[in-house]
């Protein structure tokens, strides 16, 4: 797999593509892009079969190890790749460590081991056991093991530990990658840790710059502990550290952030030159019965940012979630029906909300790409920011 991007400057919006994928030569993913967040190999509430009713385009599935740990043993015997095992052989897979939708519990550290929380509780991975899994999963893209358990209030000691642990993981995982035949076509993303301390980030980056062969991209790790809180991070708090990192890393490689960033922060991060995100935001919204209704195009007929379909005012509202939206939920189902499903706890309720949210978010990313192309990203940013602010005020 190759990543091509332009312009090659440090902190500006850019357009790129992931292509020349060995197993899927016709696939071409345009960046800035969004990976489909999965749990246990499925987009929450949407089976791969139903997703085909949402979009026929090729996608990258973000597959957090936390939900896949249960298949660790089975995958040693399974002959195919993780994409085909989870029932989506035409998708690209990106194996990640933590689930962006679930809070990564702090603490629980152990030298040279990282805890993940599976359905059966806490499990530790070290570089060897992690790479064993990666080799048996054979993902198209994967993150190297990292200790990214830092956030804006982490202590210096924690940051130092996160850096030293991750340095060790980096070396050991890359060594193993270089020897592995099964992984010779896998695209490697190196997490960058160091919390909110510039000096730690710089220290970590100069360490990996010494030996960067086989590294195809970077994950800006350690900005938050995942889960719903990431939605409300203030951009001015993360901007300095993100800029510091982007100024130091090679420009031609893929840049990834993980987490449920709100649309305003997505645009802000795109403006800094981030290439790849995930749909965890769609899931977080769906879990609180909220549907995205912010306008992407000026022509979108909406005066709300998001709506909560549990609200009893929708009981006899036979309009779609968003007038003019062409997703399956909006073309075939009403707010009243979805409200009914949610209020009687039927499975189809969150399915219809999630279909709309994922569709809307994919459309949002399409708009971002076309705005970069036309040099109008700032207009979009102003519009989304204003809608977001108004929404915060009315809450």
């Amino acid at each position, binding site marked *: 797999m190759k990543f091509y991007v332009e312009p090659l400057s440090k902190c500006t919006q850019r357009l790129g593509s992931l292509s020349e994928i060995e197993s899927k030569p016709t696939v071409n993913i345009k960046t800035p892009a969004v990976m489909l967040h999965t749990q246990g190999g499925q987009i929450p509430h949407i089976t791969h079969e139903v997703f085909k*009713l949402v979009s026929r385009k090729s996608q990258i599935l973000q597959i957090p190890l936390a939900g896949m740990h249960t298949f660790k043993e089975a995958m040693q015997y399974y002959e195919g790749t993780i994409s085909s*095992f989870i029932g989506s052989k035409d998708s690209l897979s990106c194996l990640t460590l933590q689930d962006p939708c679930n809070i990564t519990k702090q603490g629980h550290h152990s030298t040279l081991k990282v805890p993940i929380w599976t359905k059966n509780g806490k499990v530790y991975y070290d570089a060897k056991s992690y790479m064993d899994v990666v080799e048996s999963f054979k993902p198209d893209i994967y993150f190297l093991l990292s200790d990214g358990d830092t956030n804006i209030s982490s202590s210096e000691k924690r940051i130092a530990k996160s850096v030293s642990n991750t340095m060790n993981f980096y070396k050991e995982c890359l060594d193993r990658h270089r020897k592995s035949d099964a992984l010779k076509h896998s695209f490697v993303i190196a997490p960058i840790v160091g919390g909110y301390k510039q000096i730690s980030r710089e220290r970590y980056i100069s360490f990996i710059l010494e030996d960067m062969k086989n590294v195809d991209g970077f994950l800006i790790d350690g900005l938050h502990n995942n889960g719903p809180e990431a939605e409300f991070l203030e951009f001015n708090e993360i901007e300095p550290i993100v800029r510091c990192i982007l100024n130091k890393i090679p420009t031609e490689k893929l840049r990834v952030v993980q987490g449920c960033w709100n649309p305003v922060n997505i645009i802000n991060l795109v403006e800094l030159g981030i290439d790849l995100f995930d749909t965890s935001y769609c899931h977080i919204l769906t879990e609180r019965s909220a549907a995205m209704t912010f306008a992407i195009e000026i022509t979108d007929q909406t005066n709300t940012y998001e709506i909560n379909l549990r609200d009893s005012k929708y*009981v006899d509202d036979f309009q779609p979630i968003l007038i003019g939206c062409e997703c399956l939920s909006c073309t*075939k189902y*009403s707010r*009243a*029906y979805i409200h009914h499903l949610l209020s009687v706890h039927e*499975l189809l309720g969150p399915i219809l909300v999630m279909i709309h949210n994922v569709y809307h978010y994919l459309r949002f990313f399409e708009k971002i790409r076309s705005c970069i192309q036309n040099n109008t990203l700032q207009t979009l940013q102003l519009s989304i920011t204003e809608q977001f602010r108004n929404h915060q005020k009315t809450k």
Partner: protein
Amino acid sequence: MTTKSPLVFSILTECGTSKARVSRMILPHGPVDLPVFMPVGTQGTLKGMLPEQLEELGLQIMLANTYHLGTKPGTEILQKAGGLHKFMNWNGCLLTDSGGFQMVSLLKLAEITEDGVRFQSLNDQKAEVMLTPEHSIEIQNAIGADIIMQLDDVVKTTNPDKERIEESVHRTTRWLDRCLKAHQNPDTQNIFPIVQGTLYEDLREKSAKDHIERDVRGFAIGGLSGGESKDDFWKMVHLSTNILPKNKPRYLMGVGFAEDLVVCCALGVDMFDCVFPTRTARFGCALTRKGQLNLKKEQFKKDFRPIDENCPCNTCKNYTRAYLSGIVTVLPVACHLLTEHNIVFQMNLMKDIRQSITKGKFPDFVRDFMLQVYPTKNYPSWIIDSLSAVNIKLK
């Protein structure tokens, strides 16, 4: 104005040996090939399946529950929506029950009088509510299903009090007449009477004979599948189908196990419904001709075969037992995947029954089917007896 009947029934082929028949019933929302199994979409949705998917599977008819829909969203919303078909975006046929069964089974406090069923509402007000035959039809008229059920006086099948059962038989017929009188949409909805009488042959005969005198287009057999012995069960079905006219469809309520379907088709039943296939999917059980697979079991963890190699459903095309085993009862999507499989299983069974009757091979089909379920030929006596009553010898 069209004066077309809302139910046109035609027998296509009769089995030369048993009472089984293949027929076709044309309802306002399309044709239904009989014998048919109707999955249950209690609250206006079928357990995580989109109507688009059900249409794709070729499903022609499903069931919805009047009691649940009358409580939520309620008749007012259903009327505003233009009926349940429009509300839930299902263009196929629908059948609703009368609500009486739920009242007696769900609500301990239900009290039955000549007027109707008095019960304490489950909604917030906990008010005392009376469900009369007129009210049941009013709700069912608002729902707008193609086939609707009379309110019947339900007595627990295992209740031995003959006096009470005799009362229920007479009352059910009186309520039938009230339902027919109250019915507002005789041109678009068909009321089916329900044959009652639990396990008393004389009472069941009386009930069936009273009902066939009414001007209706089909009949239901109720009060079975409620914990009685299989020996009693099949005899009551046999007796009922002997009395009910050949030229109208016969619906056996609450039956859905594969063996029961095969036997009761032989006894001349045309329509079935049961929550079992969709309910058992939620608990991780997949149906096959050889029996159920409980996918939670350890033995499937490294089983890379589909649930059933011969099954045409998407779940069997795309997923292995090993994968499903890791997600059943953990992810809601696993329930969708197994529900699809189980519905396809039921539909295929009915299709095979129809085809074998058409080809004049039904007795062979029954023998092959039973041999798959009981490879050592240790057939339960009720199966041997019931089939032999319609000239199909198993051994």
